[in-house]
């Protein structure tokens, strides 16, 4: 999937935070200072102080000379990291992958997240509004690469979104600082008059490497997307996996069962806590001789029911070949889904498809014989008999159209209609008798024809004229003639089903 990143830049991160905590600081210029070589240096200034010309790096003594009213607060060490971390944790609501980007930024991996807020525009508008309500001055941008998002958040227009694969064109007009370069390289670019990225991005790479080193090209590639860039999420996504090392190699079925029970207990506890259930699970047994034996199960509906999962695995324990013994068990759950435990309790004793016991039964059947087909049929909006039903995708799927029962339908339908020989008055009377597998059936009563057209937009072919017929014993058959009556075709009649 195409990656999308959002970069958040807090222009006055620390001073905004101070102002939120101390309302008396609102509306007055103030700075945060740290001691450096025996003198106090401005480390962060709020926007009012900036308007007066107070920027980080100036000595407090100098600043006080031209702005005596300036309020100076000593900064606690490690404040930036602490603030960024707490903001990043707050941002988990927008995406599961959030990384801090010191000194003043946060990076969100928003791949596949923005549509939940109605698109990227409303996504960043929403985030921006929330930060503004809290009193933070933030600039957000979205791009395909971290480098581009970083650059545009700091040097581009406010809250801008770079469309997919457009980051190169957007970067061209930005200053060279937007590439996150070292100061020495920046100074050299400056002295050569290469002020924007566009002024050097199209130069030959060898020339750029000789004059400015590899780092410039590396950063340029990262911003354009030729080079991958990784972020370290503050909250890594733990895989659903449990391990159980054994002191002694396990060789018996009882031992494997005990290990499995322990693993299932641990994983189900975690899953229940997170409101999730297993759809697929794998038990890997690492043997002493280095081989890995594995068994896997699947369920029809997400479940965190320990006993049921154990039963599913228990049907397959016999497939594990322990040989000299198993020293490590790993239970992995590659596919989980949300479950609603409240609902499960509510419907616990209900008759019907909602009953979890039924889905558990289907799981057991499927895991005993993976080749078995479990299907439930729903009506489909087709008259053509073979297409008049479809298999349901899930236990919860309901019919969208009605079953067509205006005309009688046979209880048994042959998959492939079988050709028969008939004696029938032309042009469209039902047959008088027909021969099927060497036997002759005399028809006493008949109903029809019922013409069913082939759906030309799906496949080509003749229509069918169906007749329901009854022989002298009362046995009923569903016959049809394919197409119009035609002398040249010898066999146009087929048997398609048996009625009750």
């Amino acid at each position, binding site marked *: 999937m195409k990656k999308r990143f959002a970069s958040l830049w807090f222009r006055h991160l620390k001073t905004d935070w101070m102002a939120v905590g101390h309302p008396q600081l609102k509306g007055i210029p103030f700075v945060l200072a740290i001691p450096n070589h025996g003198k106090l240096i401005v480390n962060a200034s709020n926007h009012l102080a900036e308007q007066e010309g107070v920027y980080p790096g100036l000595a407090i003594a100098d600043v006080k000379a031209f702005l005596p009213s300036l309020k100076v607060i000593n900064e606690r060490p490690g404040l930036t990291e602490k603030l960024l971390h707490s903001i990043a944790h707050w941002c988990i609501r927008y995406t599961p992958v959030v990384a801090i980007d010191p000194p003043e930024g946060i990076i969100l991996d928003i791949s596949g997240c923005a549509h939940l807020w109605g698109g990227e525009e409303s996504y960043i508008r929403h985030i921006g509004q929330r930060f503004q309500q809290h009193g933070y001055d933030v600039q957000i941008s979205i791009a395909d690469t971290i480098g581009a998002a970083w650059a545009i958040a700091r040097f581009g227009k406010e809250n801008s979104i770079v469309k997919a694969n457009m980051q190169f064109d957007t970067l061209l007009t930005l200053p060279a600082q937007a590439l996150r370069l070292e100061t020495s390289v920046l100074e050299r670019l400056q002295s050569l008059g290469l002020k924007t990225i566009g002024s050097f991005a199209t130069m030959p790479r060898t020339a750029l490497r000789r004059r400015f080193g590899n780092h410039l090209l590396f950063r340029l590639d990262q911003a354009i997307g030729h080079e991958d860039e990784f972020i370290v999420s503050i909250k890594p996504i733990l895989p659903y996996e449990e391990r159980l090392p054994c002191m002694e190699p396990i060789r018996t079925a009882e031992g494997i069962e005990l290990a499995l029970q322990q693993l299932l207990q641990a994983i189900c506890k975690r899953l229940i806590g997170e409101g999730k259930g297993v759809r697929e699970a794998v038990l890997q047994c690492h043997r002493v001789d280095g081989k890995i034996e594995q068994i896997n199960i699947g369920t029809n509906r997400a479940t965190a029911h320990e006993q049921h999962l154990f039963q599913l695995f228990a049907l397959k324990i016999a497939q594990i070949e322990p040989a000299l013994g198993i020293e490590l068990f790993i239970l992995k759950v590659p596919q989980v889904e949300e479950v609603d435990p409240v609902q499960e309790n509510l419907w616990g004793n*209900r*008759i*019907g*498809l909602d*009953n*979890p*016991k*039924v889905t*558990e*039964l*289907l799981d*057991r*059947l499927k895991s*005993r*014989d993976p*080749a*078995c*087909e*479990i*299907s*439930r*049929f*729903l*009506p489909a909006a087709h008259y053509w*008999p073979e297409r*008049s*039903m479809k298999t*349901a995708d899930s236990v919860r799927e*309901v*019919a969208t159209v009605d*079953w*067509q*029962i205006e005309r*009688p*339908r*046979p*209880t*048994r*339908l*042959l*998959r492939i209609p079988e050709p028969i020989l008939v004696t029938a008055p032309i042009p469209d009377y039902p047959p008088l008798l027909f021969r099927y597998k060497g036997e002759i059936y005399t028809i*006493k*009563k*008949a*109903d029809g024809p019922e013409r069913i057209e082939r759906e030309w937009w799906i496949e080509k072919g003749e229509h069918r004229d169906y007749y*329901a*017929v*009854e022989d*002298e*014993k*009362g*046995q*009923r*058959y569903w016959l049809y003639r394919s197409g119009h009556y035609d002398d040249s075709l010898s066999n146009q009649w087929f048997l398609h*089903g*048996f*009625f*009750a």
Partner: protein
Amino acid sequence: MLLTEKKALIGQLKKDLLVWQGVPQKSADVLPMGLGPLEEAFPNGIFPRGVIHEFVSFDRVGGAVSCGFISGLLGKLMCNGGICIWISCFHTLFPTALKSFGVVPEHVIFVRMEREKDVLWAMEEALKCEGITAVLAEIHHLDFVQSRRLQLAVEKSAVTGFILQHNPKLLGATACAARWKISSRPSQLEDGLPGIGYPSWDISLLKVRNGNPGCWQMTWTAEGFEPVTKTRQEPSDWAQSYLNQGLA
């Protein structure tokens, strides 16, 4: 002791036996199956649920007819939204037809297993599951031990089981509560109307545990089962020969 007293005593004992065997008493909350006089063949006049019913058929039409009749029974059993599991080795049932027998086809789960052994295993598992109303399995042969296992499974869960035997080579004794054979008979049309009319069947109840076997004629109409004859008939020729000597 007088003969009438003896008869009364034996009658009372028979009734007690039925109670001890768990056969329910006739009461208002047990809905009739709509089979009319046929239901009198069963103990206490109630179609037994929570047992195994066995159906035999000897050709493809016979199988289709049995499916239709069973669907009619399922329609009554599943009217409260229950579900049915239909297990077989092949897929030939046409779900649309179930609808015309009063079954909601969406409530039937079709399971196709590769081997007949697995069909019986799946049936036993399904019969133990309490959330299901009925289980139907299509097989070719059922022996006594297998039927006993199935019967034991339903006794705990009260699921009704149907076994449809196609072309059995040998019809031996089984532990099933009833053995049926359904065959078609020419339908009766009113006043020479064209068409084929409603399906009409000869229903032979070959064996009933604690009941009276016999033959009935039945029609499936838009309203459900409709008995053609009001009384039980003596078994037909085929059934008679079956009852006398078993099937070769």
